[in-house]
């Protein structure tokens, strides 16, 4: 008898706690949403869009690193795949509506992600990172050589076009709210995934893969699906970015970009939802601020110093450290 | 047996030892003394802090306070490798076999800190499995073979104070018996041994004294002679 009652008590306690956490999450989301809606009135919208694109990219990346434990060193390939496809389509087929361009761009990245995944997913740890890097380098090579990418010059003057053939996106505000919607879509999707039954399995794989196998999970399939979703969202970020900047360039495909997204994610905090967003905001801002000021030719050393400081002093990232702090001081 | 004369020599004295892993306070003021040539055990339930005590002696825990004297020398500020050089041999709880090394390399890895350690032949005679598998990668050994290897490599170094953590874990009963004989032989040679054991049946006949630990403290000290009379106390602590 007694055990039965405690059992249900505890169970209910758990559910209650879940609810409370969910409410907290919702409040946080709401606050963020309001901030994001108001942001373009005080800040330069194109800059905000850049941040959102990179934030989406980082969120996509974090689904792998933070929640599946896979370090991909080739995510630039997906960003670029989305970016070039959308850029090429919108520049060359004037009948195409913007969202079609983005959808096809994302689909291309998804397919590429599937290809990468099938090749890479069976490799562990550092080998996984390296094989994704190698594949991304090959993709980079293709982008350098292929005639439709404009080589070093990239694709320029991609028209922003009309959303659903109706909304003129050359208006920065219209563009901003579209990008915001895409970003939120991606963000909420990842949030949903992380909490989903699928997310639980990913978490399990991350923590103890052999055990997950012995529980009957075909872990390769799970990792593959996570990889493809991540690639797809990265491609979406690339597609949207191309529309915003009307430009697709080799930069997106370079391994530095794959490195950058790792930095953003780590700086913000892996395995937290908000971390990559904060990290991307921070890095994009920092690069911009530094390249502007009198420190123009000191960007690299200062970035370098920031990485060093991050690793040495707040390894869990900005959001991670805040969470740790709250945990310590709340309980 | 010249060592018998020096038996009263104090090999280890621990007083007021506290140890921490990060925030968690694991040892709460350990007091113990071990004479040269003695074999004492640390008994207790899982998580009582026995392994931590050994690690604290080796300066392998996060932070520690108090005093640990080895051979009359204060070691609180010594780096672990200095402590080993004082003649302390440590056999860790989870074997610590190196996968990058083969069996032979694992065996000869710890530097000899004193003369009088066992020779390789002697060791191979004791653990023939090891000889058979001497060129395999260390971690390709079976669980029990790894345990043998972990024990064997300490015997080689000539350390005169051994800290042994759960050395019978996962070993076949015949090997356990053999290990018991080895420990008796070592004791006769005048080595000091601190044994952490779950297998009380193994430890009981070997030990001179038993310390019982609970919640990071020593709650009872029982000498071999008192074992029978204090059996009920022991049962209470160990839940036998």
């Amino acid at each position: 008898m007694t055990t039965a009652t405690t059992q249900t008590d505890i169970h209910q306690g758990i559910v209650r706690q879940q609810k409370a956490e969910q409410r907290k999450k919702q409040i946080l989301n709401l606050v963020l949403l309001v901030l994001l809606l108001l942001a373009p009135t005080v800040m330069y919208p194109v800059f905000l869009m850049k941040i959102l694109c990179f934030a989406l990219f980082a969120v996509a990346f974090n689904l792998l690193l933070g929640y599946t434990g896979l370090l991909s060193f080739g995510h630039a390939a997906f960003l670029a795949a989305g970016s070039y496809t959308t850029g090429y389509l919108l520049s060359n087929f004037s009948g195409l509506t913007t969202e079609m361009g983005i959808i096809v761009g994302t689909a291309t990245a998804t397919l590429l992600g599937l290809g990468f995944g099938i090749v890479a997913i069976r490799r562990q740890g550092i080998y996984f990172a390296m094989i994704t890097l190698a594949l991304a380098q090959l993709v980079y090579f293709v982008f350098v050589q292929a005639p439709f990418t404009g080589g070093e010059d990239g694709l320029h003057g991609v028209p922003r076009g009309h959303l659903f053939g109706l909304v003129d996106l050359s208006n920065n505000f219209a563009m901003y709210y579209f990008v915001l919607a895409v970003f939120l879509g991606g963000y909420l999707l990842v949030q949903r995934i992380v909490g989903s039954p699928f997310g639980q399995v990913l978490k399990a794989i991350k923590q103890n893969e052999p055990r997950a196998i012995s529980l009957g999970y075909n872990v390769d399939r799970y990792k593959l699906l996570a990889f493809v979703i991540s690639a797809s969202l990265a491609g979406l970020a690339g597609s949207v970015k191309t529309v915003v900047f009307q430009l697709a360039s080799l930069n997106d495909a370079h391994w530095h970009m794959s490195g950058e997204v790792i930095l953003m994610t780590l700086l913000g905090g892996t395995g937290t939802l908000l971390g990559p967003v904060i990290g991307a905001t921070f890095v994009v801002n920092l690069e911009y601020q530094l390249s502007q000021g009198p420190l123009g030719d000191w960007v690299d050393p200062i970035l370098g110093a920031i990485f060093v400081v991050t690793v040495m002093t707040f390894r869990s990232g900005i959001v991670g450290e805040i969470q740790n702090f709250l945990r310590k001081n709340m309980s | 047996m010249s060592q018998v004369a020096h038996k009263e020599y104090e090999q280890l004295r621990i007083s007021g030892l506290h140890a921490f892993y990060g925030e968690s306070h694991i040892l709460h003021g350990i007091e113990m003394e071990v004479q040269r040539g003695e074999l004492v055990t640390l008994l207790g339930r899982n998580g009582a802090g026995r392994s931590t005590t050994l690690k604290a002696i080796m300066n392998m825990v996060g932070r520690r306070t108090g005093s640990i004297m080895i051979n009359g020398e204060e070691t609180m500020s010594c780096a672990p490798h200095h402590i080993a050089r004082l003649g302390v041999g440590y056999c860790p709880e989870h074997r610590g076999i190196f996968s990058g090394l083969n069996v032979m390399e694992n065996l000869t890895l710890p530097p000899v800190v004193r003369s009088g350690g066992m020779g390789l032949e002697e060791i191979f005679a004791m653990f023939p499995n090891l000889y058979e598998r001497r060129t395999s990668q260390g971690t390709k050994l079976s669980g029990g073979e790894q345990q043998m290897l972990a024990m064997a490599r300490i015997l080689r170094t000539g350390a005169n104070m051994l800290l042994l953590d759960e050395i019978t874990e996962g070993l076949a009963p015949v090997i356990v018996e053999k290990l018991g004989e080895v420990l008796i032989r070592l004791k006769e040679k005048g080595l000091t041994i601190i044994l952490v054991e779950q297998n009380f049946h193994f430890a009981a006949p070997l030990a001179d004294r038993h310390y019982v630990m609970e919640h990071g403290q020593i709650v009872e000290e029982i000498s071999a002679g008192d074992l029978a009379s204090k059996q009920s106390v022991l049962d209470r602590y160990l839940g036998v």
Partner: protein
Amino acid sequence: MSDPFVLETQSLVKEFKGFVAVNDVNLKVQRGHIHALIGPNGAGKTTVFNLLTKFLIPTRGRILFKGEDITAMKPAAIARKGVVRSFQISAVFPHMTALENIRVALQSFEGNSFRFWKSGESLNRLNERCMELLDSVGLTEYANTTTVELAYGRKRALELATTLAMEPELLLLDEPTQGMGSEDVDRVVELVRKAAQGRTVLMVEHNLGVVSKLCDRVTVLAQGSVLTEGNYQQVSDDPRVREVYMGGAATEKQEEAE
């Protein structure tokens, strides 16, 4: 049911670069039995386990589960068939709560684990069954504790509960009591006894007390081959077994058990 043997190996061989770890093993495990695999260190017990669960690929030989050849199956597929192992080293998901640990196991039967769009709340249906399982191993009050914080013995208990959640027909336990204090050993013995109801258990164990208390049948492995087989009494009376494995301990344990 026709076949009394749930698991059968036929001439199972495993070689590691010229070293034969498992040599022509024919093992038959009867339905409903608790079957122990004992033997000296390095006899090949863990290797046999690894072969049965496909963490290693046999060099030769066949493995039959309920008469079906499972030699070529993948680890995950075998787990789904109902052959589930627990590990020699404790295997849990360290940063999940005890409850979540079990839920992940239960989830693998749901077949909807690829649904990444489903809300996490859909999993709460499973909580009740999780609590039952936790209760059965005495971990009710730790349901919401992160697993890293659990003591070693409790981790083992949790692991066992997770394994039970898989509703295995055949449970493979590799040294379930290793590193446990006697109190915990007793608890695990009870646990295994309970778990064995209605299913078959194959275990590796060095603690002869446990073997003598629990097991219906014992197979002794030495140098990769089966030395002998029988119930505990028969096996422990065999002088060869005493020589290579039990030493003087056999008699002690027996007395104790009685």
